């Protein structure tokens, strides 16, 4: 058992927000998904106040050892999430962490307030870092604004508040310090790096959203550097992610200072990657101990 912000988790591997739709996966894989759920906690995709359709396709671009997505945070909105998704997510048998994003500080507070009354939401994660949407970038890149946001949200939500930092910044540690000072219980990083793919026929941006976010093994070394930089400056726990594909990678993130690791893109290549990585991590840990 692992302790994380007061939550007791079966192991150290969770999913990255927006990279695993447990409800769709259950339709694809049936109840075997529940019986061998790959993550020690489930992080929802980003939920916004109102519903969002997301970006026009194409939404994917493949890169060397990675991919760009320009999904654009499609979701049913807060009401739809609470009514239709949350009850089923609670059947997963692991703590549910709800990732939220507002376009203003007040929207964040409203989202946090609504989730405060839902005991099924074990923690919230504030997405202040999504490179697909203007606001995400702006709030998370400015330590002062980030501090104000976290200060506003902190008293509204009685359980752990995780701040998902933006990687597209000169000084991620300064943002982490601001989040901690404002009362965050943990930080998570990294979100995707702002990136672009060019249509080979015509030289236009390929993605419907023009820019997108790079994820996968390509960004792992950047993620490790950011986790290490943050770990040197704060005391609260860190959820490290970015290109984690194997137990070895997870071990590297723990060595860099993370308490948990999250798996995103690798789940696309291997739906049960979370469980495999947790297993490989245990093997590595026991080798090191032995």
């Amino acid at each position, binding site marked *: 058992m692992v302790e994380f912000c007061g939550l007791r988790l079966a192991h150290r591997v969770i999913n990255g927000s927006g990279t695993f739709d447990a409800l769709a996966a259950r339709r694809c894989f049936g109840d075997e998904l529940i019986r061998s759920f790959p993550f020690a906690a489930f992080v929802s995709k980003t939920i916004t106040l109102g519903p969002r359709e997301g970006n026009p396709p194409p939404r994917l671009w493949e890169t060397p050892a990675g991919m760009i997505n320009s999904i654009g945070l499609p979701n049913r909105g807060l009401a739809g999430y609470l009514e239709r998704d949350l009850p089923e997510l609670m059947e997963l048998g692991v703590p549910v962490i709800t990732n939220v994003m507002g376009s203003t500080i007040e929207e964040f507070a409203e989202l946090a307030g609504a989730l405060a009354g839902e005991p099924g939401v074990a923690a919230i994660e504030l997405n202040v870092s999504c490179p697909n949407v203007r606001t995400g970038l702006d709030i998370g890149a400015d330590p002062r604004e980030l501090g104000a946001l976290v200060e506003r949200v902190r008293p509204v939500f009685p359980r752990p508040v995780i701040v998902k930092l933006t990687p597209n910044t000169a000084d991620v540690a300064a943002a982490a310090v601001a989040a901690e000072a404002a009362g965050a219980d943990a930080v998570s990083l990294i979100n995707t790096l702002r990136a672009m793919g060019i249509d080979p026929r015509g030289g236009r941006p390929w993605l419907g959203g023009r820019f997108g976010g790079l994820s996968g093994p390509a960004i792992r070394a950047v993620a490790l550097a950011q986790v290490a930089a943050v770990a040197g400056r704060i005391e609260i726990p860190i959820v490290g992610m970015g290109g984690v594909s194997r137990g070895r990678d997870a071990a590297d993130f723990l060595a860099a200072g993370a308490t948990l690791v999250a798996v995103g893109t690798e789940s696309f*290549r291997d739906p049960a990657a979370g469980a495999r990585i947790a297993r490989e991590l245990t093997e590595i840990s026991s080798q090191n101990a032995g």
Partner: protein
Amino acid sequence: MIAPFGRRSVGVVERREVGAYVVIVVADPLGVEYAPGPGQFYMLAARAGWGAGDGERPFLPRACSVLDARDGSLSFMLEDIGPGTRRLCELEVGEEIWLTGPLGVGFRAPAGRAVVAAGGIGVAAVFALDRVLERPAVVLGFRDARHAAAASLFRDPGVATDDGSVGHQGLVTELLEAELDGGGEATVYACGPPGMLEAVRSVCARRGVAGQLALESPMACGFGACYGCVVATRDGYRRVCVDGPVFDAALLDAVA
């Protein structure tokens, strides 16, 4: 119709060329609860040599319709159109691939008689219908004779080619219209390139005939995780991998 959770490593037991296409057969000895239905697909990736080197890509697995499933084996038909399909076409017997599936919502039982229309590699998605349905009418379109070789897999297909080298010179939708002119309630099953599917959709719409269209879209995951494979429908964006790949023609304003 559901899949075992996670990817599994399976061995290639056969590889053959069918005209311009490559058919690979893998051993996948699973119970009937995991038997694929017509129109379902799998995500495939070679275990070795998947990307890097001079080519860099692929990185993600590739979606592939199941051509046939029997005796503990699955077959797939591939067209080399890029780095991922090329690597899959180059697979040799004895190599291992990663496999996830069966995935997606396939074709549903017909109301009235079934008319199957497919173009190019799209024939792979409808091939199982030719075996499962009573006596479907099948019309297939291809670029040329090399591609039309795939028609030999079917029992009694009508064939059209762009260059007239095999069968009717012209569009497969012309054969489809002739077939529908035969009369009676029908369901059209179709898979093919976007232009052909759009033509089929508009034929169905014009005639008020039910249509089931197997769409394609670049995919990252194939199981609803990434929201990357959406197409625009009358109900908004829908994921091809979990809400499709087979969609009711009536749900679509257009196939792009």
